[in-house]
Structures are given as structure tokens and as C-alpha cells.
């Protein structure tokens, strides 16, 4: 390409080009560091669970050096493919996906040299850790697509976790706990909606303060009631996994996706419903229109603030339900600040996924995978300190919002309060 042609590139194309250069850099890094530098290879054992019975495991043994080499070469081929697609003015999404997966595999071969990787378990754990992130990111989609920034995801998750744990314990009925969780999240988002939409307070400030409020309240009540009276207040228990007939027997995929607790199945439903409703229904069109151009929406008779209010409430309900996963899905009892910043990673997933439901799910899965891989490699021992693995999602998000991976744009009116008949202020 000549200099004149480069100058003529549009902004998204420039970003795509930057993305390809970044991938080429990372791919060559993988080739040298993971593939060429290690002096000798060691066997890496991957085990795959084929049916729902863990006994039926198949082991594949790969040499770490040749595995890393193979996958880094595939990654570089994917970069070449992306470059060709770029020349042909096509999207580079597929090539980027192939690149990501093979870069990760190359890294895994290198990092796990001489070790045993339970592959199915790794993915199962990744999904497990992604569940609250996906719920949280969906709450972000619902709220932010209609134009209200939701920094309070953390608080909504925590409120859901607290209330579901407490009610399930008090009534000794897990279903009751599950049912109250959405209302707990909704209570927080009701505050967000009242203050942000009615009083027009800055939404970032507000969300932040609401998080502090929920952390303070739950910590206080935890120490005051849940610790001293644990048997009545904090022994809710967990839902048992439900195996879906037939589906749970599919090799590898079955045990990962179809032998989960009810909360995970609710998550599948939530994601599918939100994705379809947002892009195919009247409600979705209205939601997106008040998020992008509220003035135009109002001019065709849409009550902007009513839609926003409703969406923020639904968002809280979804996040609250996700909060129940911490208590009823995972641990069985509430503990202090048990959401541990997951709400912020969900926010990162939302941004990484460019405010689209499926994109956010993909990002949440990647973050969950990184988190779980980190845990596994800490146990087996790696060349990389675990702290750096833990940093990965955050660094990735910074890179993403800096535009190195592609264009990241929020809904145009996100975070801007709207006054009837007068545009934004």
C-alpha cells in the first residue's frame, strides 16, 4: 500500500490495521518465546471427558515445544488471513478468533510443559467463573443501551447474593432465595434510576456511591447478624446440578454446559432473550433509540425516561439474579464482599464486548477462562507469576478501550441525563 492509500484509510480501517499489527507482534512473540526459545520439549497431557461420567476420559499427550510451535504458526497464518481479508475490505472477525484461540493454545503448551491439564474441567471451571460476569454484563447491556451508565453492577450483584443467601437460610427454601434475588438487585437499581433519571445526578458518581452503600450495608449486617446467628441467618445451601437428558451426554460439551445448576440455565435463557429482544423487538428498538438519540426518540412519541427507568430496573433484576449464583450456586452461604470486584470485571466485559449481548458473553467467557487458567497454573506451577495472570483481563480491557483491538464505542447518549422536550444537559 502506498502512503497516499494509508492516508485514505477511514478511522475503523486504521483501527483494524492497528489490530492486525498488534496480532502480528503477539504472534511472533509466541513463536519465539513459546516455540523457539525453550531448549527441549516436555510432554503436556490434555485430558478430555467424553461423557457425563468422569471415568470416560481420553488423554492426548503433546510435546510442549512442537505444540507451541504448531499453534504459534497457526496464529501467524491467521494474521496473514486477516491481512488478506483486510485488503479485500472484509471484516477480520473470524481470523481474529482463530488467532486468539491458537495464541492461547500456544501459551498453554508452553506454560504447562510437563504438566497435566484437565481440559474439560478447565472449561467447566471457566464457565463457572463466567456466570456472574455474564449476568453482570447483561445488566450493563440493558441499562447502558438505554443510556444509563451502570457502574453499580457490583452493588447489584452483592445485594442479590446477600438477600438470596439470607432468605434461603431463614426460610430454608432455596427457591425463595432465588426469587428474592432479582428484587434485591432491583432495589439498588431503583435508587440508581430515581437519582440518575429523576434528579439528573451524574451516573458514574452515583453508581460508585451505591456500590459503597451496598458494601457497607452487607458488611455491617454480615458481622451483626450473619456471623453470630449463622445457623438461622446464613446457611442457605446450594442448588444441585441438573443433568439435561441426552444433551449432557455429548462428549466434552455435555458435561460443560448441560450439567449445571438452575441458575446457569436461567443465564442461558437471559442471554438469548436479551439478544433477540434487543435487536428484533419493538422494545429493543426503543431501548437502542433512547440510548443513541433520545431527542429523536421523543419526537416520535417515545417516553425516554420511562423506557430508561424500566430498563434500569430490569438490569438490576438480572444482576440480582446473578448475585444469587455466589450464594445458592457456588458457596452455599454469604461472606463479606464475596463479589470481590466481579461487577467491575463484568463492566470490563461489557466494554470489551462493545455493548452487545453476545460480545459481552464472549468477553466474560474469556475473562472467566483466564481466571480459571490462572488458578490451575498456580497449583501446577508456571513460568509466569500468578499475579500477572490475574492482571490479564484488566490489561486486555485497557488495550481494548485504547482502540488497539478495534473500535469501541458506547451508545451515544450513554450517561447523559435527558429532560423532556429540551434535549440533553
Amino acid at each position: 500500500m502506498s502512503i497516499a492509500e494509508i492516508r485514505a484509510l477511514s478511522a475503523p480501517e486504521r483501527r483494524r490495521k492497528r489490530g492486525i499489527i498488534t496480532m502480528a507482534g503477539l504472534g511472533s512473540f509466541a513463536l519465539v518465546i513459546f516455540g523457539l526459545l525453550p531448549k527441549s520439549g516436555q510432554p503436556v497431557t490434555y485430558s478430555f471427558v467424553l461423557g457425563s461420567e468422569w471415568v470416560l476420559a481420553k488423554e492426548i499427550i503433546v510435546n510442549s515445544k512442537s505444540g507451541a510451535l504448531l499453534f504459534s504458526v497457526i496464529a501467524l497464518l491467521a494474521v496473514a488471513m486477516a491481512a488478506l481479508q483486510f485488503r479485500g475490505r472484509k471484516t477480520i472477525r473470524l481470523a481474529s478468533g482463530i488467532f486468539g484461540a491458537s495464541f492461547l493454545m500456544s501459551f498453554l503448551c508452553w506454560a504447562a510443559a510437563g504438566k497435566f491439564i484437565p481440559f474439560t474441567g478447565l472449561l467447566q471451571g471457566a464457565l463457572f467463573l463466567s456466570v456472574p460476569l455474564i449476568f453482570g454484563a447483561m445488566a450493563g447491556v440493558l441499562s447502558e443501551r438505554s443510556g444509563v451508565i451502570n457502574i453499580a453492577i457490583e452493588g447489584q450483584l452483592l445485594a442479590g447474593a446477600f438477600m438470596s443467601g439470607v432468605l434461603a437460610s431463614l426460610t430454608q427454601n432455596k427457591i425463595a432465595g432465588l426469587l428474592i434475588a432479582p428484587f434485591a438487585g432491583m432495589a439498588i437499581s431503583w435508587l440508581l434510576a430515581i437519582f440518575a433519571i429523576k434528579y439528573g445526578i451524574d451516573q458514574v458518581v452515583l453508581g460508585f456511591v451505591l456500590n459503597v452503600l451496598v458494601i457497607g450495608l452487607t458488611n455491617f449486617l454480615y458481622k451483626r447478624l450473619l456471623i453470630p446467628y449463622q445457623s438461622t441467618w446464613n446457611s442457605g445451601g446450594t442448588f444441585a446440578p441438573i443433568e439435561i437428558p441426552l444433551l449432557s451426554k455429548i462428549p466434552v460439551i455435555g458435561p460443560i454446559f448441560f450439567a449445571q445448576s438452575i441458575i446457569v440455565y436461567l443465564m442461558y435463557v437471559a442471554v438469548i432473550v436479551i439478544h433477540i429482544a434487543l435487536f428484533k423487538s419493538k422494545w429493543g428498538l426503543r431501548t437502542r433509540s433512547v440510548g443513541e438519540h433520545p431527542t429523536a426518540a421523543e419526537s416520535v412519541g417515545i417516553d425516554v425516561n420511562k423506557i430508561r427507568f424500566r430498563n434500569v430496573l430490569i438490569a438490576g433484576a438480572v444482576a440480582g439474579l446473578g448475585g444469587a449464583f455466589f450464594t445458592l450456586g457456588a458457596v452455599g452461604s454469604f461472606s463479606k464482599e464475596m463479589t470481590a470486584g466481579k461487577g467491575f470485571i463484568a463492566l470490563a466485559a461489557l466494554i470489551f464486548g462493545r455493548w452487545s449481548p453476545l460480545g459481552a458473553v464472549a468477553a466474560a467467557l474469556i475473562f472467566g477462562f483466564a481466571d480459571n487458567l490462572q488458578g490451575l497454573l498456580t497449583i501446577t506451577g508456571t513460568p509466569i507469576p500468578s499475579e500477572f495472570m490475574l492482571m490479564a483481563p484488566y490489561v486486555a480491557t485497557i488495550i481494548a478501550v485504547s482502540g488497539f483491538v478495534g473500535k469501541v464505542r458506547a451508545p451515544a447518549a450513554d450517561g447523559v441525563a435527558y429532560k423532556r422536550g429540551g434535549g440533553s444537559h
Partner: protein
Amino acid sequence: MKLKKLILPALSFAMALFVSGLLVAFSDSKVLALKGQPISMLSKALSTAGGAYWALFRGSIFDPQLAEGHFFQGFYPFSETLVAASPLILTGLSVALAFRAGLFNIGAQGQFIAGAIGASWVGFTFDLPIVIHAVAAIAAAMLFAGLYGGFVGFLKARTGAHEVIVTIMLNYVAGYFLLWLLSTTAFLRPGRQDPLAPEVHQNARLPHLFGPNLRANLGFIIALLAAGAIWWLLNRSTWGFRFRAVGANAAASRTAGISVARVTTSVMFIAGALAGLGGAVQILGSEPAMTAGVGGSFGFDAITVALLGRATPIGTVFAALLFGALRAGGLTMQASTETPLDLVLVIQALVVLFIAAPALIKSLFRLKNVDAGETVASKGWNG
């Protein structure tokens, strides 16, 4: 006129104390046990909440018991308030300055950690004469944290990456980086397995203000000086004028020939340096051996401090003193009345919520003609 400005914060604080008092009283098992006897329940509730707040006062301002032997010692709690408030003033100033330039610095936590790392490293690695050592440690802290904050401004100026997202992420990065550092031979104290750095040398420590028995130290004076400097910067200097102009209207400032990119980067650098100075004051003043928890919640509380102080340097100092008092008193409250320290978080959040919604307080108390002041506002993701 000046007094009128205080009405709203004072009422907000009173409301927050009232709501939190209800929480304290009606989560108490002894109060709950009196269900059915409204009068004795109410008096028990009053004495429970009253007891907690009395302990809060004893722990933050003056303790008559401690004053019995030696009157001056009765102010030990107030000295603790100053110790807690000093880093908070600095991180609060960091957030407030960014607010004035239209930036929301949620990253004071990470910048504080970067500063603590710098101060700690210079403090225990080198052997320098008194005064010079402290100055060197502080300079390192401000430089590290300034770069950490300035990077955010640079990214925003160059690529449009929103500072809220980048700072949230950098807080986590700083936390994990500190955790890693404390596991390396350079930072781990010899002979220890738990994450604990060596103590900084005596020469680098900040001297106590009121004798060896009270922990209040020079850090408080440094914080006040910094507040004065930021006041001067914002209200009397050309740079401060540019900062405020960009905060008020970035597009108009650009048209008027102000480089918004340069302002964004330099504001975030100074904001980072202020938070880093907070980290240095913490390390050199009261916590000479750095742990993984050195950041505490100084950077997060800073946001509520700056909001309560309406993003002015003087307001921030008073807000930080108030929150410092809550923090110091909260410890006494927890120890003597079994009221969890986390109540302080609830009070803080409620104060800011009430302050941020002047319309709510006004309608609650049927106030008219009360100056609500400017409300702090950032812009949406695309702003």
C-alpha cells in the same frame, strides 16, 4: 452567606447519622428482643445508637478516660483522626483536581499504591542523611504515581480511552503488581514468607508533631500545604485557569486555543502525584513497613471525600477530616460497642448520596433559597 453553604452538608450529615442510627439500633438483638414493648424498645434503641455514636466521638476527638492522668493525652483520638485524615486529604485533592478539569479519577487507589511503592523502596534501599532521605522518598513516590496517573491522561488524549474505565482497571493492576513485588527478593523482608516489606529507615520517617505519644505527624502539615498549593494552582495560575476552562467546556477551550490533550495529560499527572504523595505520607508517617493492604480504601474514600468537599481544596480538607474522624472513631466504636466498622461506609455513602441530591434534602426539610453549590459532574462514556 458563607454559613448558608454549610446548611446542606450539615443536614446531609445529620440525615446520614439518623438513618445509620436506625440501622445500628434495629439490627441489635437486644433491641429486637423487646418486640411488643414499644416504649422500652424505643429507649433501648436510643441507648444502643447513642452508645455507638458516643464511642465514635471518643475514638475520634477526645477521650475523657485517657485525659484523667494527663490531660493532653485525652486528645490521642484527635491525633489518630489527623493520622487517618492526612492521606485522605491528599487522595481527595487528587480526585477533586481531576473533577475540576472534567475528569473522573477513580484511580487514586492505584496511584496511592504506586506512591507507596516508590516511598517504601527509596525508604529502605538507600542510606541518606535526614531530611534528604524523606524528600527523596517523597519525590520518588510522586514521580511513580504521577507517571501512573499521567499515563491515563495520555491514553485519553491520544486514543479517547475513557479515564473511568482505564483507572478502574489500573487499580487492579497496581494491587496485583504490589502483591507480586512483595513476593520478590527485592521487596520481601529477609526471613519472612508473608508479604511484608522492610521498614523504611529512621532518616526517611516524618517527625511526630506533638511528642512521641501522639502519632500525628508532619504528613498532616504536608497535606495542608498541598491543599494550599492546589488552591493557588486552580484559582491563581494560568494553568489552573486552563484546567477549569477545559472542565467547564472542552470544545470551547479548544476553540480558544487551549490544548485539551496537554491539559488532560498534565491534570492526570498532578492528580496521580497527589495520590502518590498520600501513599508516601502513609508509609513515611504511620506505616513504615509496606504490606499488600497498604492502599486500604484511601483511594476509594477519596472519591466520597472530593464529592463531599464539592471538589474545592478547602472543602476537601474538611471532608477528609470528617471521614478521618469517622475512620478513627469507627475503630473505637467497633472495639467497645461491637458495632461493625463498616457502619462508617454506610454513613459515608449516605452523606454523599444526600449531598449529591440537593433536591431531595430540600424537599425533605422544606428549604428554600439554600445555595446548593455546583454539583460535580463528569460526562458520559463518550465525553
